[in-house]
């Protein structure tokens, strides 16, 4: 029993490590004082100031727009890429392709950011596009690394999916493209939703790459937060952080509850189906 005691302690410590900073952040967002670490009473003052902060609000708007476009494109490209890796077997250049999918997952952001910036500058010199840098270049950069994440999610979902389901559809007369849209896509749709959300979050969260490839007048939310944090701790950032955390947590928990309820129902159905032949409820024996 000592062993499980140790595990329990490790788990408790780990979760405390993960959550105490976040909880403190939330608590101190309701602090009256400008000095973030000195408690001087409850107040929602900083939320009010946040609403007045046009710079942050417009940056948030830009970030959300970029994230939405990024997530959509990344899901489209990443799905094709994942399908290619999981289903097309060997083709010329596969090693390079899978390398280009996995490398962005671990590539330090400073390298990705610098290299993309230099690409955009060279392209502008060469073909005159993109004219300057801003939301477009940030979006392209985000699509590139988010695609890799989506591709990995889709690939692992497809590898786990019985290929004969797709073959059965082919066998019954559906052409490959139709099989993809009518069979494969609906089955992997949970993975696509997860991929979209992940791409959205990654884009919303990125500071380093966006800093490299953005231009004047196109500051994303992390860039604005970063510059105000560099000047010191500000309670407005706490308030903003709290808003983000609440939104994300609500979203994730809702999704989690829906998914686990769905899974539980499936499991119950399955037990019922195996227990009673021809759908009669299982009788206790």
């Amino acid at each position, binding site marked *: 029993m000592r062993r499980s005691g140790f595990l329990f302690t490790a788990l408790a410590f780990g979760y405390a490590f993960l959550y105490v900073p976040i909880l403190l952040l939330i608590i101190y967002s309701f602090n009256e004082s400008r000095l973030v670490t000195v408690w001087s009473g409850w107040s929602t003052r900083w939320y009010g100031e946040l609403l007045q902060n046009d710079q942050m609000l417009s940056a948030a708007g830009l970030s959300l727009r970029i994230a939405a476009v990024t997530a959509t494109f990344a899901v489209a490209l990443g799905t094709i890429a994942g399908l290619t890796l999981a289903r097309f077997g060997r083709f010329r250049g596969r090693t390079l392709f899978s390398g280009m999918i996995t490398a962005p997952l671990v590539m330090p952001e400073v390298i990705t950011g610098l290299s993309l910036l230099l690409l955009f500058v060279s392209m502008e010199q060469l073909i005159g596009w993109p004219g300057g840098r801003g939301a477009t270049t940030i979006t392209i950069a985000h699509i590139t690394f988010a695609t890799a994440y989506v591709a990995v999610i889709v690939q692992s979902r497809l590898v786990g999916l*019985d290929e*004969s*389901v797709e*073959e*059965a*559809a*082919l*066998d*019954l*007369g*559906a*052409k*490959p493209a*139709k099989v993809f849209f009518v*069979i494969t896509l*609906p*089955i992997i749709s949970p993975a696509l939703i997860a991929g979209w959300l992940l791409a959205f979050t990654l884009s919303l969260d990125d500071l380093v790459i966006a800093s490299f490839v953005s231009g004047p007048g196109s500051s994303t939310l992390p860039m604005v937060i970063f510059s105000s944090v560099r000047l010191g701790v500000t309670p407005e950032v706490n308030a903003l952080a709290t808003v983000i955390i609440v939104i994300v947590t609500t979203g994730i928990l809702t999704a989690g509850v829906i998914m686990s309820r769905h899974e539980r129902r*499936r499991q119950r*159905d*399955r037990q*019922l*189906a*195996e227990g009673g*032949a*021809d*759908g009669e409820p299982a009788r206790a024996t």
Partner: protein
Amino acid sequence: MSQPNRRQTKLEPWQDPNEEPYVRIDGVTKKFGDFTAVDDISLNIYRGELFALLGGSGCGKTTLLRMLAGFEQPTEGHIYIDGVDMSEIPPYERPVNMMFQSYALFPHMTVEQNVGFGLRQDRVPGPELRHRVDEALELVKLGHLKRRKPHQLSGGQRQRVALARSLVKRPKLLLLDEPLAALDRKLREETQFELVNIQEQVGITFVMVTHDQEEAMTMSTRIAVMDAGWLVQLGTPAEIYEYPRSKFVAEFIGQVNLFEGLVVEDQADHVLIQSEATGSDLHISHAGSVPVGTRVWVAVRPEKMALSLEPPGVEQNVARGTVDEIAYLGNLSIYLVRLESGTIVRVTSPNLTRVTEMPITWEDDVYITWPNYAGVVITQ
């Protein structure tokens, strides 16, 4: 399927030289890199057959089936179905449907939608589609479950949905990949007969892949036994069982005793083989001509042998030994007898009377005899 398609098929179309084969597999080879999965196989399948491809895992039977379906392309050779070369026809245009080992039901569709999927691809109009789906579900006795999704079905029900789905398009050829492997033993036996009944009702030619020799024997009109990409023997279940042409087939299908020996007499109505294993000469009445001096194997099925405690008073087809093991299986008993040469012989004998006191027991000295027609000469 409204008028059960009881086409008057000939009983043994493969015996008739004028009968056109329905499926012609012509010199088909499939290589995956350096590995040859199917090695130059040619065989004909006739209309209305329930044809079984039988073999162990990795023998190439599934690859052959997948080439019939169009999921794999032959490296060499051609496949003709109803006279049409299938080489350039993709799976979705072939008049062939397949029932997958995993059933491969579409998890996001109801039973009804699953069964109707193939008809929708052919743009069958709504009323006809519904009618045919209902018919197919009636055939497999699942009409009451059509609104269920696959995960709400038991294993046996899923198998029936898969069958209905592959039958509903009335394909020229139905492929079944280990159709019963996922069912438990009792259900498997029931389903074997049901599948044969359905096949007779719809009159579609079935090609089935299985590793289970019992399943192949009970269900099929003919069996192709495969090993390492080769077709080792082709014949009716009785032919394959009674006249195995190689040691592999003899041992793969059922139990067999093999005695090595030398041909000493080759007459029109029999051959005589001298064997060190049995100590007596082996007389085989119906064998084809085998030159004197050839080393051969003689295969004798255990149920064709008899045991006695008294000397039987014959010179040929007899062996003497001691009982090593007895296994009582209820309907029959298996005796393992050790001959003086060290060879172990398996004899099964039906328990015709209630056995309270077995006449033969462990360590008894016994004689094994078998009739002249029981042995088969194997040269491979």
